[in-house]
């Protein structure tokens, strides 16, 4: 049986690892489409042939839910993530306080779009919680996705950036300076669900498997967290 | 009538107003630069949409604005030799030549093509492209292209202007034959009276967009009142003669103007009718029959009219047999010889002053009305 999974682009490495093993073991064929969450959600709305969708954005999943495009009760919060404050490799660790402003100097804080892309939304909320947003707001350089923010720091264009914890691991040119406390921002969740159009038993099986301990181990290795029920 | 043209068109700085009918054969458009000749030809081709007008060829209307008829150019079956060549740069000479044939439904090589290629001296150029041709070569290809499409009307806008004398002399007989053998009417624009005299059945003289006068070639060229429009040097009479002998010394003898006319050998058979243009300036007058003189042609004439010009010259119209001859002499000679209407005298014409180009097969206006 062929299953089509629409998933947020940032999940690619981890999801392929888990999914491919599962496919080998079960004999099903897996087809992925990795893109931005908003694009995927709109495509599902437009009748995309997806069986399982995993977004990096709760709002879009809520939107699909509201349109009754998800199988009832299939939605789960599959993964979580943490926010990291990063700087170039070799930079000294930093406290999440006014030190940030000092370190920033007249440089830029690289973040994803603060009103549109989840990582940016969470980052802004965290800074607000920490009471730093007002001072930093004017120095934020927003990118269309988290990876671009990471690149700005990696290339030394921005002294600081806010990205997901999972993004930091494979980039040797950056280093995590601090981790934002999970209560400083709304929970970062990657919801998953089966689409109403999907008649696939295997898809439900896969969704099940993604929550298995073996899968969790892989996700953790890639820097994601597992949301506590 | 074979071609009938009635046109009215308003340019910002010129009003075109033309109305004439012409029998089959060659109709020459003559006029100063900018007088509207090309404009008329374009209207006939369908490339210019005149404000008002009616154009018909051999009874078929090509344009009739009052009836709302405007045949598109490609349905007019015309062959147009443009003033500026307009060869297709992306096609070889041969492909250019064959372009129109294809649309006329004529496929494959033809005898006509071989013949034309030879006559126009294009044999060595067939695989070249227009960009590599000299000015005259281009024009020759353009002529061939128009002829090969076997049109029902040929438009030629100064087709020979870019050619040298010998080449002109080679092409003219072909156009003549075209005129006489096929019944394709030709609208011919030229500044060269020798071409017009030789080819044209009808001449239309244009002046600043208006038709000055139209009529049979003989009448127009011999009309002293048009001498200024046509050029003093080019005014002259057309004589019609019959070949009576070809002499051993390379001269042909014609019966014309009530006497004998010796010309450098003409290709026509005995008994054939020819037309010969005698430029007024080449005619000398004598009261007595001259003797011991190199001019072979001495015609017995009667002065019918003397028309002094503004300058030192005068036109003398003479009756020679059934024909008319025009002579241009100085007023001084008119006085010295005491010329006056009614007087008889001799017209002296040198054989060699009648150019090859001035001798052509006759196409009478009577004959041509058969085609109408």
């Amino acid at each position, binding site marked *: 049986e062929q299953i089509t999974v629409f998933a947020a682009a940032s999940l690619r*490495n981890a999801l392929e690892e888990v999914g491919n093993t599962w496919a080998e073991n079960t004999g099903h064929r897996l087809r*992925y*489409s990795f*893109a931005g969450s908003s694009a995927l959600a709109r*495509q599902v709305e*437009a009748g995309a042939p997806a069986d399982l969708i995993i977004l990096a954005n709760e709002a879009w999943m809520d939107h699909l839910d509201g349109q009754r495009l998800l199988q009832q009760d299939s939605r789960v919060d599959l993964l979580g993530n943490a926010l990291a404050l990063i700087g170039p490799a070799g930079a000294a660790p930093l406290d999440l306080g006014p030190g940030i402003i000092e370190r920033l100097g007249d440089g830029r804080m690289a973040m994803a779009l603060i009103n549109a892309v989840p990582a940016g939304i969470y980052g802004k909320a965290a800074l607000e919680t920490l009471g730093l947003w007002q001072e930093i707001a004017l120095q934020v350089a927003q990118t269309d996705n988290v990876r671009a923010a990471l690149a700005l720091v990696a290339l030394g264009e921005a002294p600081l950036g806010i990205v997901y914890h999972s993004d930091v691991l494979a980039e040797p040119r950056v280093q995590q300076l601090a981790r934002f406390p999970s209560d400083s921002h709304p929970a970062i969740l990657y919801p998953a669900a089966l689409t109403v159009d999907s008649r696939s038993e295997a898809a439900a099986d896969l969704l099940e498997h993604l929550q298995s301990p073996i899968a969790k181990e892989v996700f953790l290795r890639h820097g994601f967290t597992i949301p506590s029920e | 009538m074979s071609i009938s043209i009635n046109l009215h068109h308003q340019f910002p700085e010129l009003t075109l107003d033309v109305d004439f009918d012409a029998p089959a054969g060659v109709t020459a458009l003559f006029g100063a630069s900018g007088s509207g000749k090309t404009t008329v030809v374009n209207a006939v081709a369908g490339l210019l949409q005149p404000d008002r007008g009616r154009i018909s060829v051999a009874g078929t209307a090509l344009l009739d604005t009052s009836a709302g008829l405007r045949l598109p150019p490609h349905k007019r079956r015309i062959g147009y030799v443009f003033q500026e060549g*307009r060869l297709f*740069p*992306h096609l070889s000479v041969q492909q250019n030549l064959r372009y129109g044939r294809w649309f006329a439904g004529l496929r494959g090589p033809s005898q006509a093509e071989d013949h034309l290629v030879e006559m126009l001296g294009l044999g060595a150029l067939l695989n070249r492209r227009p960009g590599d041709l000299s000015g005259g070569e281009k024009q020759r290809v353009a002529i061939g292209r128009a002829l090969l*499409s076997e049109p029902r009307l040929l438009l030629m806008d100064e087709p020979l202007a870019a050619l040298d004398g010998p080449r002109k002399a080679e092409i003219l007989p072909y156009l003549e034959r075209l005129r006489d053998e096929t019944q394709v009417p030709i609208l011919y624009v030229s500044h060269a009276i020798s071409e017009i005299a030789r080819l044209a059945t009808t001449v239309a003289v244009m002046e600043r967009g208006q038709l000055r006068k139209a009529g049979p070639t003989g009448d127009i060229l011999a009309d002293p009142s048009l001498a200024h429009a046509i050029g003093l040097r080019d005014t002259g009479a057309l004589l019609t003669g019959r070949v009576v002998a070809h002499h051993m010394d390379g001269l042909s003898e014609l019966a014309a103007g009530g006497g004998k006319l010796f010309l450098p050998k003409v290709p026509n058979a005995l008994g054939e009718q020819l037309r010969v243009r005698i430029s007024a300036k080449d005619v000398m007058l004598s009261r007595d029959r001259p003797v011991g003189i190199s001019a072979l042609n001495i015609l017995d004439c009667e002065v019918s009219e003397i028309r002094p010009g503004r300058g030192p010259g005068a036109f003398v119209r003479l009756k020679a047999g059934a024909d008319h001859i025009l002579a241009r002499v100085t007023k001084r000679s008119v006085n010295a010889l005491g010329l006056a209407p009614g007087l008889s005298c001799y017209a002296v014409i040198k054989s060699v002053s009648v150019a090859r180009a001035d001798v052509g097969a006759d196409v009478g206006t009577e004959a041509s009305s058969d085609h109408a």
Partner: protein
Amino acid sequence: MQFLSPEEWTAVALSLRVAFWATLLALPLAIAVAWWLARREFWGKQLLNGLVHLPLILPPVVTGYLLLLTFGRRAPAGAWLEETFGLIFAFRWTGAALAAGIMGFPLMVRAIRLAIEAVDPKLEEAASTLGASRAWVFVTVTLPLILPGVIAGTLLGFAKAMGEFGATITFVSNIPGETQTLPSAIYAFLQVPGGEASALRLVVISVVIAMTALLLSETLARRAAKRVSGR
């Protein structure tokens, strides 16, 4: 070959297929539209002109979104096409070709239109006096003369089609073997940690293909231009 994974090869092949069909099918339409814009006056000319340029002006994501709204399976045009011709664009490589074709269309039209405007109408007139109808004039005179422009336009269209990403991924998503073109694959690699090297490899492939097409088109265009110059 080891250089690329099978999946990456698939993306290369798909990109070529998409760009090829997008260009091939858009070309006649582009020529027709360019001719109309260059040689005709008609009501709504500026509207058509604007419409043609739209994909250039809009951010590609918007174009993709509009395509989704028009040719999605639930959308009126999409549904109608599926019912009537069995033609499905949504989430098929055909949709990627449609997106690529539309994105390249303004570039093709512009190049061809410029070429048409440079053709001397006197040559077309000459052809018409020789009996060629308007269509034949076009085929035998105009088209050969604009060939360098057509080639340039085709190349621009092809290059754009090879590079198009925003509209494609928004419209038909990023399904390997079906809609994952080279740029989509590059994008996907850039979204995950450590994907840069893989992305770079694909970029190199892209560039090589496009440069080959470019060289080819230059050679063809030069040959055509030489013909047109009449030498």
